[in-house]
């Protein structure tokens, strides 16, 4: 497989009609991580959603790998190369963590055994709550269940929107170690965060968003 590469040219995004930022350029290759910076409401989540292909940019292009570049202002869908952990956890409250993860992995077209899911949940210290409905978990536990996808996925590109929200110090360290390992293995991570994430082995580039 070729080295993963995410190329963003002249990207302008917004919510509806309202423009949020203009002419963003950056390039990330396998083994690089980037943190999106900017004040509240400047479009960090919008940028991640645009990179994921959930919404169309106002102008500009997102290229992934050597795939044919999308036309100007069109969303690209990265599909099986992408693991997107959004603002919401994508967990249904009436299902248990393992049931939720099982469906999420099938949606990502990954066949993961129940044993593998159990193992990851145990690694994250969630084995005691693995069979409890998600609505009875704490905010931090739910976030950890949602992040468990990072251990199960094999996607080269991770887009993480506030991955560390509601996490305690130990879980944050575990998350950082996982991001380090992914980047060391040639993956790409783009994330936003308010909490400081100390990545020991990864040099994190900054993508500054300046409101227009």
């Amino acid at each position, binding site marked *: 497989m070729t080295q993963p590469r995410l190329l963003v040219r002249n990207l302008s995004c917004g919510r509806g009609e309202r423009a949020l930022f203009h002419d963003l350029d950056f390039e990330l290759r396998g083994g690089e991580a980037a943190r999106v910076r900017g004040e509240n409401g400047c479009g960090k989540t919008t940028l991640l959603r645009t990179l*994921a*292909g959930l919404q*169309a940019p106002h102008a500009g292009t997102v290229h992934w790998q050597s795939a044919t570049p999308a036309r100007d202002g069109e969303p690209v*869908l990265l*599909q099986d190369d992408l693991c*997107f952990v959004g603002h*919401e*956890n994508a967990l249904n409250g009436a299902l248990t963590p393992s049931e939720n993860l099982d469906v999420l992995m*099938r*949606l990502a077209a990954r066949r993961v055994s129940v044993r593998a899911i159990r193992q990851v949940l145990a690694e994250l210290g969630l084995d005691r709550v693995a069979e409890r409905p998600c609505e009875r978990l704490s905010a931090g536990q739910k976030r950890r269940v949602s992040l468990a996808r990072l251990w199960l996925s094999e996607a080269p590109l991770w887009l993480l929107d506030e991955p560390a929200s509601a996490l305690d110090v130990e879980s944050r360290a575990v998350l950082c170690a996982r991001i380090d390992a992914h980047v060391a293995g040639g993956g790409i991570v783009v994330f936003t965060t308010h909490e400081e994430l100390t990545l020991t082995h990864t040099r994190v580039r900054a993508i500054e968003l300046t409101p227009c």
Partner: protein
Amino acid sequence: MLSVFWAVLRRDLLLAFRQRGVLVHHLLFFVLVVALFPLGTGADARILVTVSPALIWMAVLLAALLSLQRLFRPDYEDGTLEQYVLSPEPLALIALAKVAAYWLASGLVFVMASPLLVLLLGVPAHAVPVIMASLLLGTPTLGLVGAIGTALTLSLPRAGLLLSLLIFPLYVPVLIFGAGAMRAAIAGLPAAGALYLLGALLALGITTAPIAIAAALKISLE
């Protein structure tokens, strides 16, 4: 590709089972609408038999409208919908699985409850098989068409009224042929024509509605 269909179907059926209280509410609503109607018409049994096709179908339409609002809403709110859209699997197939699970957990229950209700209204027993067949063919179409409306109104905070304005006109063909089949059956006439048309509408719905639902879901997420 089919594995995602079964996975989503299983998930939604499991959810319907875990939240079966909701299902009971919808069924009770359906039963109450039909049961309250005779209280207003008086004791003339012939009137009840005459209006029973319209009554049953209106009750089904209202119950469908009520239950459809929850079809994509939880997934939209908890972020699962984003994962559906980002999935490498076809979104239309995921949408079809969701509607199938929805129908199994609500439409099919209405079909099961209908014989008791029509007999309660004094409809002759020989009409019951056709009535069940018409509901069996008609209710999935209601689910498929309604799902397009729900998907379109997903990003609006209070979508209930708009949803009914959007989808009720589209329910007209199902209402006409569904009630038509029931009327014919009650009168002892052949109802096959109306049933065939209901079947044709269902085939059209299964093949085209998922594509429209998928497009509507993508618009709602933007």
